[in-house]
Structures are given as C-alpha cells and as structure tokens.
C-alpha cells in the first residue's frame, strides 16, 4: 500500500464526492461533455441527498474506449471533497482505488494508512486562485489532464462554459482548470498514475443526453404541446427541459398548484385538441390517481411520465427504485385499459415517449412512461437519434351535426372530435354516459360501455412491444429485467460470460407481450431482477403467464444495482458451471 500507482487502460471509473454546494454537478457537466468531445466514451450518473446544502453526494464518471452505460461499484479514482465524502463511499473503496485528496484534511486516523492516497493540496491551491470554491474546477482540470484532453481544449471549454459571466470568475475558473491540468501532468510524469484509454474520433461528434432529456425529446417528437406539472424529484427535469424549449416548439409549460390540477389540466388540454403530458413521482402520482380514472372514463388520451423513487410516502426523495409499477398498473378506480412503458436505454426513452403520445391518441387511454431517479440522472453518448422514425399521426376528426363522442364500435375506439372543429358537439362526462356523452343510468348501456372501453385491450396487446432478448436463443437460464436496469444487467451478463444464460428485457411492462410465455417455457431456470422488494413485475408475469418465478435478485436501498452486484448474485444463483 502507499505506492499510489494506478495503471488503467480501456475503462476508468472516477468518483467525485462532496457536499451539495461543492459544485460536483458542475464538474459532471463539464467533464462529460469535454471528455466526449475528446473522443472518449462516457457514462455519468449521480446519487444525492434530499438537501440543498451539505450532506454527501457523489457522481460517477466512467471514461472508456468502448461504450459504457451502467453503474459500477468499482472506483479507480476518487476525489473526496471532505472527510464525510470518504465515509460516504467507503464500501466502494478498494486496494486499487487511488484517492486524490488533501490527505491531512480528508483522512482520519482509522484509514490514513491503509488507503491509496495521492496527496494533492487542493485547498491551498484553490485558496491561492481565489477560494476553496474553485476546488471543483481544479478537480475537473486534474481529470482532464489525466486523460490528456489538451490544455487548450480544456481552457477553451471552461471559458465557454462560464460565459457569459463575471470576467473575474471566468478567469479564476480558467486558472483553476489550468492548475489542475498541470498537477495531472506532474502525477503522470512521476509515474504515480498512468492512464491510457484509447480514443475514437467518431465519438467526438456523438450526442450526449440524460434520461430526462431523452423523455423530453421524445415528448416533443410526439407532438407534446402542453405540460402541466408540480415539481417533484426526480421527475422535475422533464418539466424543466420542456419549459426551456417551450417557445421553439409551440408548447405550453405550466407549473401548477398541485398534481391534481396538473393532470386535470392536461386532460382539459387533450379534450381541446392539445397533446399533453404530466411528469411526476410517487407521491405526486398518488394525487393524480383519480384523474387517471377520469382519463379512463372519458376515454381521453394522457401521457404520464412517472419517475420512480422509493416510497411509501416521502420515502427517499432523491433516490431510485422500481417500486411503482403496480401503482401505475392499478391506479385509478374502476376498470379501463392502459399501456405502461419502461425504457432501459436512453434512446428507448425518446422512441417510447414519442410512441406514448401516438398510442394514447389512437386508443384514447392513459400511457405511462415509467423511469426512475437513476434513469433520469444518467448520461451517456450515442451516435444519434433516429428522428425520422418519429412521425406523428393526427387522430382528431372533424365532427358533423350527428357526432357522438362515444359511438359504440367493435374495437372500442370512437372517432375523437374536439370542440370547435366541425359542426358537432363534444361531450366528456365522468359519469357513465351514453354514446353522446350524457349521464346515463341505463344499466345495459353501462355494460356495453365497459365492454367498449375494455375492447381496446385487444388492439393494445397486439401492438405490444416484444421483450428484447440479449444472448443466444438456446439459453438454459433466463434473466428477466425491465426498465432502467437494462445496461447494468447487459454488462453483468458480459462479465458472467456464459452462453447458456440469456437476458430478456421488457421496455413495455403492460400489457405483457403475448410472446413472453414462449420465452419462459424454454428456460430451465428463470431469475427476475428488479429494483424493489416484492418482485412486482414477477407478480405481473405470473398473473399473465402462470409462471411463478422463484429466483429473484431484488434491491431496494435507493441505489441502482451495480454491475458487480448483479454479476455476483447471478453467479450465486447459477453456480459456476456452464
């Protein structure tokens, strides 16, 4: 120990950890873009406490020569901004982890000697530059230097990043970055750190987005022109994104008084010809539930982005979980059809959100996009997005004088008119209603209306997106996952390296694709992986297919599965033999 030597090629995991207010997010923003522009594949994600200042938050940045898109447990380089940070990520620190820090300030007696320290006088240097607030940019400079992005490229990026702004501040940040870059060069010259991750010129021009942007882009692609929501972590970033782009895309973005107003407003928007969505999280969605039923009853399209966080109640407000699948599935009283998507890849969030608007409109039902904090806050680079696949269908029909909003039909779909377009009148009623839309207590008609609404399930199920099989068709064991765990499980599968194990990922979790049964029948052993305590998708699969999945890998401490965790737990269940 104490040799402080790090030699890494291919894939490096960097973690910065400090208080809220230390500016770690700024470092994440700068490094992800700058390193991508330099030709590295990038993945970044964060975990943070529910507070504005203080605590311990961390950001992981993976820099790699090949595509990376999932959370690791391993830390190669750790930059702790304070003593608490070291404790916060303690479980992830190994003999291999190099800690770049003010050793005197950050370390304590317990762990002073058994860790791999590289002493960097952050606070002295930052103070010389203008104050400890420059520690974050100093750190960014060091990492940029270790990866040799070029001093000029760094300087240029930092200047651009802080412009327009106070000249003095820009100058000091440039100095901090420059100084960091020099420190990195010294570290490499001394042989303490040697990083050799190869670059790819094609990556430079790739796009880099996070989950919130992916949902937002998908919404715009889907013709979203109305979002009404109430801020709630971790769903707010979608509202922020659409608000920022409202002017360019003919979009009304309104922060409303509560979630009840949000979804009722969005229903009003659909009724009048808009394409509306809400973005929310557990407790906020719980408030919306009555109106999910309203969408069911008035056969209104609705798009609901539900970014999951651990509950019940306030739970862990800034953490992640896949705990609201059944909440979404059974939300709203009464019986009516719905669709639930759960993207695994960021790209999928774009396409699924786009599709959500069209399917909601086509079937006149609520469509959910189920993400979570991990998904919202994770970034990686990708070549591009195929926007030519995001065409929209216009389902609104011009009404005539005899128009009946709920005209009975075999497939359950009645042409959807809107007020003021055509000669007809458009009636929406939360009571059971007749074909026109007026209140009825004709109980035979009630049965017809229930049947009409539920008839849509046939079309919806036919259109269900099939699960994606990763691995060989002739598997013996089948891993099942859904939503945000996609990349983590894929990488764990690579680590496992077994040809007799395949992974089946569901990006549509309801209705469950009819082909699922066939996949399950073929497997000798099935393992369900879910970020919740009660195996919610497993229950749904059982209801749908009759298969009782016994092996489960579940996690519900508020942090996403790491690649190593999934690998180890799969090994434990599957054994070592192929």
């Amino acid at each position, binding site marked *: 120990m104490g040799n402080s030597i790090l030699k890494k090629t291919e894939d490096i995991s960097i973690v910065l950890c400090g208080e809220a207010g230390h500016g770690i997010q700024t470092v994440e923003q700068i490094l992800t873009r700058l390193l991508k522009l330099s030709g590295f594949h990038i993945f970044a994600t964060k975990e943070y406490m529910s507070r504005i200042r203080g605590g311990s938050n961390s950001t992981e940045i993976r820099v790699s020569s090949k595509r990376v898109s999932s959370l690791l447990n391993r830390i190669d380089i750790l930059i702790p901004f304070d003593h608490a940070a070291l404790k916060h990520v303690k479980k992830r620190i190994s003999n291999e982890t190099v800690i770049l820090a003010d050793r005197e300030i950050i370390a304590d007696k317990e762990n002073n000697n058994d860790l791999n320290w590289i002493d960097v006088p952050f606070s002295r240097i930052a103070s010389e530059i203008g104050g400890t607030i420059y520690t974050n940019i100093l750190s960014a400079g060091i990492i940029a230097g270790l990866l040799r992005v070029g001093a000029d490229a760094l300087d240029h990026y930092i200047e651009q990043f802080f412009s327009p702004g106070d000249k003095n501040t820009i100058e000091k940040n440039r100095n901090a970055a420059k100084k960091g870059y020099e420190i990195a060069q010294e570290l490499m010259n001394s042989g303490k750190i040697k990083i050799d991750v190869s670059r790819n010129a094609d990556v430079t021009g790739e796009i880099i987005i996070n989950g919130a942007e992916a949902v937002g882009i998908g919404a715009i692609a889907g013709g979203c022109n109305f979002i009404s929501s109430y801020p709630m972590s971790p769903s707010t970033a979608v509202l922020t994104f659409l608000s920022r782009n409202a002017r360019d*895309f003919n979009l*009304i973005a*309104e922060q409303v*008084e509560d979630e009840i*107003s949000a979804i009722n407003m969005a229903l009003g*928007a659909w009724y009048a010809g808009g394409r509306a969505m809400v973005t929310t999280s557990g407790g906020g969605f719980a408030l919306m539930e009555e109106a999910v039923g309203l969408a069911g009853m008035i056969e209104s399209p609705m798009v609901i982005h539900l970014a999951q966080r651990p509950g019940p109640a306030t739970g862990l407000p800034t953490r992640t979980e896949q705990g609201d699948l059944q909440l979404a599935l059974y939300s709203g009283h009464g019986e009516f059809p719905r669709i639930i998507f759960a993207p695994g890849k960021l790209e999928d969030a774009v396409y699924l959100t786009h599709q959500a608007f069209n399917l909601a409109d086509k079937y006149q039902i609520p469509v959910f996009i189920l993400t979570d904090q991990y998904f919202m806050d994770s970034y990686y680079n990708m070549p591009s997005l195929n*926007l030519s696949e995001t065409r929209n269908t216009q389902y609104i029909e011009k009404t005539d004088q005899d128009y009946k909003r709920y005209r009975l039909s075999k497939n359950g779909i009645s042409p959807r008119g809107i007020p003021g377009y055509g000669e007809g009148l458009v009636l929406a009623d*939360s009571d059971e209603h007749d074909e026109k839309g007026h209140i009825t207590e004709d109980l035979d008609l009630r049965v017809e209306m229930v049947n009409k609404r539920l008839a849509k399930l046939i079309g919806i199920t036919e259109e269900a997106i099939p699960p994606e099989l990763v691995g060989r068709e002739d598997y013996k064991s089948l891993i099942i996952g859904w939503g945000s765990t996609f990349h983590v499980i894929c990488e764990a599968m690579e680590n496992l390296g077994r040809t007799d194990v395949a992974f089946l990922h569901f990006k549509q979790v309801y209705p469950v694709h009819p082909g699922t049964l066939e996949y399950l029948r073929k497997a000798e052993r099935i393992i369900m992986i879910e970020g919740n305590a009660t195996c919610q998708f497993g229950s749904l699969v059982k209801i749908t297919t009759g298969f009782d999945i016994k092996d489960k890998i579940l996690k519900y401490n508020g942090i996403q599965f790491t690649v190593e965790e999934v690998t180890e737990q799969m090994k434990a269940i599957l054994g070592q033999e192929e």
Partner: protein
Amino acid sequence: MSTERFDMGNIDMAWCPGCGNFGILKALKKALVEIDIKPEKLVIVSGIGQAAKIPHYLKTNIFNGLHGRALPPATAIKAVNPALTVIAESGDGDMYGEGGNHFIHAIRRNPDITNIIHNNMVYGLTKGQASPTSQSGFITPVQVNGTNSEPFNPIAVAISLDASFIARAFAGDYEQTKDIMKKAITHKGYSIVDILQLCVTFNKVNTYQWFKDHTYYLEDNYDPFDRTEAFKRAIEKDKFPLGIFYINPDKLCFNETLPVYSAGTTPLFRREMAIEKLVSLVNSKRAG
C-alpha cells in the same frame, strides 16, 4: 330572443322541482344567446354535484369532470384553443370545498374564463350536510350541533387576491342574474359569479324570504374599480350585497402570458411540430 339553440327539448332532469338551478340555467341560456355565443364554440366545464349537472341541460360542448376539478381543465381548454368560450360552473361544495385550491390559483393565473358558482349553502346531492358557505350554526345530519366553522367568503377572498371580475347574483332575480352573467362572460380574464340560490329540499333556513331579507343590490353609483370599497362591502355581515363588486381591467390573462400566443392565437391543434428545430436541438447535444 329565443334560447332554442341551447335547448335540449324534453329531457329527464335530475333537479328537484323548485330548485334554484332552473332559474340559473334559464338565465345562462338567455345570456349566451344575447351575446350571441354559438353552442359549438362554447365549452361548459363542471365538477360533481347537482349544480355540476347543468352542462347536460343545455346543448353545447361539455367537460363534466371530477369533483372540485372544473377549473384546471377549463383553464387548459382556453389555453389550447383561445377561440372557444369557456365557462366553469359548479356548486359551492365543488368550487370552494373540494376545489378551493384551484379557485385560489385560478385567480392568480387569470385565465379568460367565466366561473359560475351555484351557492345554496348546503350539500344537496349527498343529502344535506354543511357546505363551505353554510352559515355558522347551520344544523345538519352531520353538523348535529350546528356548523362550527365560519362560512367561506369567496367574494372577500377573490378581492383580496385582486381577481379580475367578481360578482354576486341571486338566482331568484332572473334579469339581474342574466345581466351579471353577460358582463362576466364578455369580460377578458377570470370572472367569478357567485350565485345565491335556494335548496328547497335540504336548506330550510336560507329560504327565498331569507335571501330577500338578507341581500341588497350595490347602488348605481357604486364604483367597481375601487378595491378597498369592494372589500368593505364583501365583508359586510348583515346583508349580502349583490351585483358587480370589483373589476380589474388591467390584468394580463393567462393566454397573454404564454409564448405560444406571442405571434397569433392559432389553436394548438392547427400547428405543426417543428421537426427541423428538433433536429437542431438534438444536434446541439453533440457540441456539449
């Protein structure tokens, strides 16, 4: 002028014989005809309750949503299609109780819609419990010792929040109610019309005679632009003033604050999504 264009013909109505709702419906239809609103360009949004059934009794577009939730969809309907006339209409329990939060925030947001509240100071459809506007001491099957809460004063609340248009009518006075409605509907901004009415079945205290004894019309020389005077009148205890309490003609309405309408009022359903802008948005993610 005939109200034929809004008439439903011979339909089964769920209101009790003698209900104040009939007078309000009649006044509303007449007001709409007199200001020449076409049924297909009008949307009436309501919640739940006996008053909330009113959209079913006139021929127009209706959005009869959830209890207490008429104002959010009404706001959105006007926001998405400014060419529509939008009226949110429901009872006192729906608008002031279940939907109280939306009432407050609709005033702040100031959508160009009209909010008509049937205020009979009692819950009808759930059979006679106290409403937010029930007078103190009002005895019901639930409030067996009389209501122990102070009645909600929508007029005072609205004036305190500088609402755009605030009036109170009495359903027993057809002409005046109709005239107030016409002014409210043609007013640009969020206009509130609280209509005192009888509940012949469940409210034996606030009878026709009681309202006659406990109301008076604001004088001809009353200045509805004087907010302080309006507030004084709103909190009078002995008698409820009737008429237009307050108008603030200077407030921007919600749609006027929206960037989508900075260059014209084309309804959103007639607009195309700007795919080329989306392509450049995505491309902007290449540069960092």
